[in-house]
């Protein structure tokens, strides 16, 4: 890991995703202010910050859900403007939103294959359920997702298993380059958390996917991430690789800045 690659000059080509001067306001509220962010190939970047700091807004811009007021996004060195989530997806940016976007009534393998079904019979498009079931099983084993049965309706799975399926579905797209995870560990027990952390780690290693993770739990982020960015008041205030910062330092920094905000009346 060379943390300083891509931060300046021509080395920026190394970055799979880079933003320059991203700004966005909702009416009078400034959500993001000139945000520069970069993500290297195969890297896991953690975004931390208080509620309302702008993390989610940033992820929604990168996923194509919001269009920023100003600034530029570069994907593999080329400037991109996302019109929609689908459009961003076509470019290889997959997002797992908090609502997970799975169909609870359908089985695990049908969810994995939704709208990309394996079919035969031409126009009739008969489902090749057996083939899909086998492929789903193999794929989940490959990326290390442990689900008892791929026939189970998704609604009957635990929150962690559902999250894992949602991530697996996003990763299954052929051209995926960047995976955006919005609080993948929210409201999860210890066992489920370790399931997802394991999945995220194995994905970036095996599939060489670059990942951006938002989470409130610094301990978890330190287990997953290569680099941490802190977002405060719509700006990236800290950009450190894990070799440069310790968990205690980060927590201390966050507490200090919170106290400063309280003193100046900026705290939310």
């Amino acid at each position, binding site marked *: 890991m060379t943390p300083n690659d891509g931060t300046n000059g021509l080395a920026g080509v190394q970055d799979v995703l880079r933003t320059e001067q991203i700004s966005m306001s909702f009416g009078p509220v400034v959500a993001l202010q000139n945000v520069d962010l970069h993500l290297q190939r195969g890297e896991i970047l953690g975004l931390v910050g208080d509620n309302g700091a702008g993390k989610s807004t940033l992820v929604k811009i990168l996923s194509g859900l919001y269009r920023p007021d100003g600034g530029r996004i570069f994907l593999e060195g080329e400037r991109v403007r996302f019109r929609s989530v689908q459009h961003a997806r076509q470019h290889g940016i997959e997002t797992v939103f908090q609502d997970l976007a*799975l169909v609870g009534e359908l089985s695990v393998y049908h969810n994995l294959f939704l709208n990309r079904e394996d*079919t035969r019979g031409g126009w009739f498009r008969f489902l090749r359920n057996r083939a899909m079931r086998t492929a789903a099983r193999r794929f989940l084993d490959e990326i290390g997702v442990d689900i008892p049965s791929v026939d189970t309706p998704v609604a009957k799975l635990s929150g962690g298993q559902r999250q894992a399926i949602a991530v697996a579905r996003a990763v299954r797209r052929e051209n995926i380059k960047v995976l955006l995870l919005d609080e993948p560990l929210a409201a999860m027990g210890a066992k489920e958390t370790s399931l997802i952390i394991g999945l995220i780690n194995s994905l970036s290693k095996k599939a060489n996917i670059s990942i951006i993770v938002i989470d409130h739990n610094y301990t978890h982020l330190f287990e997953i991430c290569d680099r941490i960015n802190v977002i405060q008041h719509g700006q990236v205030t800290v950009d450190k690789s894990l070799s440069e910062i310790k968990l205690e330092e980060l927590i201390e920094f966050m507490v200090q800045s919170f106290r400063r905000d309280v003193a100046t009346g900026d705290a939310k």
Partner: protein
Amino acid sequence: MNSNASVPREVSRHIPASGLRQLIGQHLSELVGILVAVALAIFFTIGSPNFFTFDNALVLSQFIAPFAIFALAEVPVLILGEIDLSVGQMYIVSPFFVTYFNHAGVPVLPSIILALLVCCGLGWINGLVTVKLRVPSFIATLGMAFALRGIVLIYSNGAPTNPIGSDTLVNILGGWPWSEAFWALGVAALLHVMLRGTTFGLHIVAVGGNTESARESGISVDYIKIWCFVLCALLGGLMGILDGYHLGSLDPATDGLTFTFYGVTSAVIGGTALTGGRGTMVGACIGACVLGMIKDGFLILGTSSFALDLVTGLTILLAMILNVQIERATSMRGRRGSFGHAVSSVFSIFAQRRKGRRS
């Protein structure tokens, strides 16, 4: 009993459900439907020597077939979380389309095909109004039902007529006593394959289960919905033509909404969720059997025609209470009713025993 029984139930959520156990878990409402049907059959057989006979089987099939086709037509629409209240009126109006085209000089068979196409067009309008103009399907199709009733009354001047056609064609299309039953079975088989075996069917469930997620996956939600309305209208029209030839006369004043609700009721008795996301064609047929048996059975028992609606209503209520309670007990969302919980515990214990014996 409750606390003991809940242990294997909780475990069953995380252990791979396989074989019989999974079958029971996923098709509980259909199984309850079968139980209700069997219970009714036993009740009527004890009540009257005329129930369990070949002659009555024919009568029964003529009761069940229309209910089944209406229910089969409603299932995809209901899975989508929509409803089509115009299907029964489509049933009334379609044979009049046939006579209209025939009087205009079109031969019988092409007239029938044209009539069915008109029904498809009307279903397409139902779909468009619901999907594009965002009118709730309940109102959109109710408006369509009233409009169709008006059309058929204006066209016929309120006077009953006879359906057009003769010989083999009529025999195939409902004239032969068993014909409707075969049509119902054929339609059921076709739609079952469509719902369970094709991409279209899978997408119906996906849209009904989580519309946003389906749209996210790139499924054209509007396309799926519109085609389900078209299919529903087509089946309503088909049933109208079949029943026209079966009865041998067409009464424009018949109230179509009653037939619509027989269909919806059958589908719901068979486990289709009115809230969308869940339903099967097999369940719709079972529901139609239950409803048909209630209608036929009480007639055979000699219930007066005034009391018939009362007992029909109460029996439907009873069947549904049982179904909903069991549904709640196994539901992924709702709270557990203690009564349904008890019944489903019996089911799961039974399933475990069977499994243990096999292995």
